[in-house]
């Protein structure tokens, strides 16, 4: 794959800034536009830029974790956040918040909805990375299917695949024929 210097360099700059933006959305989400899903999608856009620049390998190297791990971690965080109130004797998904003043940072309001949002963020990000890994490769035949895949170089057509079924059909019909020749009812209880 040929890589363009312009795209490469600008993606290098943009990638991290977009990730920061996605984090902003994630944290602003509690009572302003944003949230885990939106943040995750924006982070996914950053990943998409990496894909544009360098294909799937670039996506894989974008983050240190595998896509499944991100997805699993996210789901774990979200589900555990939902479950913790049950353990504490409240209703599921119940939430609480603390407000403190952190010197120069000003007032900070931390809600227990935040871990849930972080979970959603990770799930969306993991899903998008999985998408690129699944569909982003150079499209190739799956060798494991073997018998089904057509000869290389041959233009495959749908009827080629149907032949296999028809063989089955003929075998079935021939079998019925043989059974009726022997004047036996077929075991299925019906005659051809």
């Amino acid at each position, binding site marked *: 794959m040929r890589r363009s210097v312009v795209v490469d360099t600008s993606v290098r700059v943009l990638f991290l800034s977009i990730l920061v933006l996605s984090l902003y959305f994630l944290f602003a989400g509690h009572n302003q536009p944003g949230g885990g899903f939106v943040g995750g999608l924006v982070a996914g856009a950053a990943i998409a830029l990496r894909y544009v620049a360098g294909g799937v390998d670039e996506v894989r190297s974008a983050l240190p974790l595998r896509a499944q791990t991100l997805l699993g971690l996210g789901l774990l965080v979200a589900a555990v956040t939902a479950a913790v109130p049950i353990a504490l004797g409240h209703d599921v998904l119940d939430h609480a918040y603390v407000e403190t003043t952190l010197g120069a940072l000003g007032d900070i309001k931390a809600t227990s909805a935040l871990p849930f949002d972080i979970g959603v963020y990770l799930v969306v990000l993991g899903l998008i990375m999985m998408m690129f890994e*699944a*569909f982003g490769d150079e499209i190739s*035949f*799956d060798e494991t299917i073997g018998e*089904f895949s057509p000869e290389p170089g041959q233009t495959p057509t749908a009827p080629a695949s149907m032949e296999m079924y028809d063989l089955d*059909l*003929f*075998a079935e*019909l021939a079998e019925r*024929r043989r059974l009726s020749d022997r004047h036996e009812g077929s075991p299925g209880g019906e005659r051809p």
Partner: protein
Amino acid sequence: MSVLVAFIAAVLVSTGTWLLLQRRLSRIIVGVGLLGHAANLLLVVSGGRRGRAPLVDLDGVEVYSDPLPQALALTAIVITFGITVLLLGIGFRAWQVDQDDVVEDELEDRYLARRLEVDPDIADEVEAERAQAAEEGRR
């Protein structure tokens, strides 16, 4: 304005349905997507008239827009998004297997249809044909 949205939903449903009835998976996927959009639009409209204040910073606002349909629509959009990805995955796999994405008739249906066609009296010919086909397959 709601009439316009309803009209758009109607157009989306009709195009979506038409695409859904095609034999190619790629078209079916687009059709499902369009149908999903139509349903989500209807969800948004179900919240009532447009132009009302949102549910934040309600200083002196008497009438505000109902946030619930928007939340529902967002949920439905997320689900549609996930399902579209899944359908693309299945379509991709179908293409990997067949280099084609035509949805074929079910084997058993073809078998039943064939059973009506093939007279047992000519089953010998069928058998011959089968042997020939098997031979070709061996080659």
